[in-house]
């Protein structure tokens, strides 16, 4: 296992961010779903070694991040894109990624510059590498942040909401990038976009209130909604969730309304059924 959590807990004052979380992450792409405040970012920060767990056991790439030497060894094989990465706005895209590359111990200038150009090309920013970050759009900045995480093809890639702020085309490009990149890599990403999870992830973990509510494949999460998604001519009072679709039907999740026909469930349906009202905000 690349990432292994056993009974990991994390508190911030009176707030329990993670409560005895246990799951394993294997090579491939693993998606982390959950409503706001579920503990996704805290979990990713633990995996990115920027935060130490209060209790429980966390092993990353077979090492213990509590040990200083092992933590450094983990970081050498880690790529991390924080939710809000922050930028030195006076830097160019190239300078910023180059700076992070130095922090990742790319000390040979020539090799480093080749690598920086490579990752910028991979995220489609080769043409704007010399442009100041302050002159880039929000989506481009997200891609700069992604580029630095891709440096050196890290064994463990931790991405916190990588598709937030990207337009549909950029999201598709991101999916393409990640799917070609994955291979032996372990990618752990958090997102609110269930389509991204359905399209990319071999595994999905749903967090809620600091606890794991589901861990399995997207198909298994989707299967939770099997036989509980309906298309009706009018909104059902008994449905847990219902919305009017573009073709005038009402998609109802829950008990079968009158005169309804069974619909094929999606991963989103499974997620909504799993979290119920808590997922409403996300679904909206």
């Amino acid at each position, binding site marked *: 296992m690349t990432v292994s959590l056993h009974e990991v807990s994390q508190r911030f004052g009176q707030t329990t961010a993670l409560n005895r979380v246990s799951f394993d992450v294997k090579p491939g792409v693993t998606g982390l779903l959950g409503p706001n405040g579920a503990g996704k970012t805290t979990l990713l920060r633990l995996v990115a*070694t920027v935060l130490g767990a209060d209790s429980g056991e966390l092993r990353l790439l077979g090492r213990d991040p509590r040990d200083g*030497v092992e933590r450094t060894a983990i970081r050498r094989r880690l790529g991390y894109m924080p939710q809000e990465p*922050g930028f030195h706005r006076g830097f160019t895209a190239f300078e910023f990624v180059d700076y992070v590359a130095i*922090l990742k*111990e790319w000390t040979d200038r020539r090799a480093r510059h080749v690598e920086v150009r490579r990752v910028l090309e991979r995220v489609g920013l080769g043409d704007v590498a010399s442009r100041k970050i302050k002159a880039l759009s929000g989506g481009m900045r997200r891609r700069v*942040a992604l580029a630095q995480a891709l440096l050196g093809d890290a064994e463990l890639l931790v991405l916190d909401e990588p598709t937030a702020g990207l337009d549909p085309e950029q999201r598709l490009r991101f999916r393409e990038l990640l799917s070609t990149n994955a291979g032996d890599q372990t990618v752990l990403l958090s997102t609110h976009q269930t389509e991204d999870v359905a399209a990319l992830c071999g595994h999905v973990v749903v967090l809620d209130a600091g606890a794991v509510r589901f861990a399995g494949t997207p198909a298994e999460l989707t299967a939770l909604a099997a036989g509980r998604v309906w298309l009706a001519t009018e909104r059902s009072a008994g449905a847990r969730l219902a919305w009017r679709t573009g073709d005038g039907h009402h998609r109802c999740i829950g008990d079968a309304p009158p005169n309804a026909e069974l619909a094929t469930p999606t991963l989103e349906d499974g997620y909504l059924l799993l979290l119920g009202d808590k997922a409403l905000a996300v679904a909206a």
Partner: protein
Amino acid sequence: MTAAVEIADRSVGAARSRGRRGVVALARVEAGLLARHPLVAAGLLFSALLLYQLYDGLLPYLPRDDAGVTQGLLPLTAGAFLAANSTTLRSRRHGTEELYTSTAVTPTTRVAAHLLSVLTAVGLASGVVLCWLAAALAVGATGLPDAAELITGPIMVGFGGALGVAVAMWVPNPRLAPLFLLALALFQAWPGLVHVSGGLTALVPLTPYLTKGWGAFEPISDFRPAAEHLLYLGGLAGLAVAAALGRRYRSSPLALAVLTAVVVTVTGASLQAVPPSRAAVREALSLSLEPAAHQRCEQRETVRYCYYPGFAGYVDEWAPAVSPVLAATPQPRTDLVVRQRTSPVQVDGIAEAASQRAQHAFWSGPSGDAATAEVGVTWGVGTKRTAFELALGLEVAKLSTGIPRGAHNYHVTRDDVRAYRTLYGEESPRNGGGDLALRAGEVINGQCIPADQARAVVALWLAGQASSGNAAALRSAVDGPLYGQSVPSDNDDEAVIHDPIAKAYLDRNTLELPLAPGFVGESRFTRLDGAYALKLLEHPRDEVLPVLHANWERWLNPSTSSGELARALGLPVHPPPEQVLNQAGIAAFVVQHAVEEADLARISPYAVYNLPRCR
């Protein structure tokens, strides 16, 4: 990962090597960013301007002026402090701290890189020092600089940068850095501002820049503990580095480094506070009081030029100012000595009394030796050269015309007392501020003024004819504006006065000649005599010289008036003041006052000029 790699990963040697390479790579980038930082650029610019302003127009004497380079680097030190603070806090300011924490490079490595990047500012400071040195040598600087003084500036800049990093580590708020700098500036300036507090002046050696007095009369020797202060500053820089690293990294080597830095700092502070020995003070004072014992002399034509060690090059500057003056005299004197003088070094403590006696002796005026012209330890270059040449030319001209130099005792006469009372009332404010009444018979010690004496006009002409620059400088002094005087016209407006003779009647101050700094005795003349000299300068030199030489003894006689010389040379004699001033349209009461003053000046020059007439 293979077992071999595992082992390598844990290898301390490999980790250290990787750490070193990381620090160097990061420091290289940070150094570039620091060098391009606007505050460093601004500091560099201000330092260059300050150095230019400090030295513009004066021939550098490196053993004395080297300390000023450190003063010039104060803006760059401030810039390095603020810029290093800002770059260290960049990740915090821009929210990249979390991302950076997830990388293999440790925060300590990042701090070390920031500290190393400060070497850029040190390099820039060294460049400034070298540029200054090159510029000084290019204009003919003399003497050898003290290496410790030259190194102090760049070390001070390094200390500023390291302190900026340390402050960022302990007080991670960029807004507080300017306040910290302000506090540091106050610590630097406060002991100097508070003259009266002995306790605070004790702090002077502890300031990062060891303050040095500045001015043309700065002694050529001082007791500035350059090497000891460098040690102290180096210790402070070491402490700043340790403080920056110690925020996140505690280890035995660092503790040892802190201990070493403390010992160096305390040792430096203690050594620089040790006062100079009596023998050293005596030797330094002797430079001023007995210059001949320390000087070398060089004979050029009829003049002997004597200079302190390191000033041999100045003879080439002095000679062109002296020769034309002597050449215009009928029989150039062969005993003339041009001797350099320096002010005595100021010391406190055990030798304070001796120092004060030496100061008094020095500032009382020139030695009065009838064969010695005194010249200071500075000399102008470029546009300032003329002022120095005119000043030295006047010294030689005074010697050649017998105008007394140095302090003399003067017995106040009844006429002086009467004139004083007429001018100021019963309470005569002597020298513009005293509250004691002047008494007949009282002895006044001071210089004299050759008012209304032909030799004054001759001396001014001798100096003026030496070069076109001298003539222009003399003209601008005689025909210059009336400083601090508003003269009403006869229609109550302010009068615009062009006539130099009218100005001379209105200005009872002595002629403000553009005296060069570094000359002990001021050249005091009246504007009226200056106006005659200007008229004389308008005539061809070949016409003036025979008339002067034919009756040389007569013109040098103190009893020969300026008017007699004017008549002999066919110059128009100054009309009486009422005629000149009325023609200038000046208000009647002003004219009346000027006429009274002119009458009193004939009876008592002392009352009018605050100087007795030379005898």
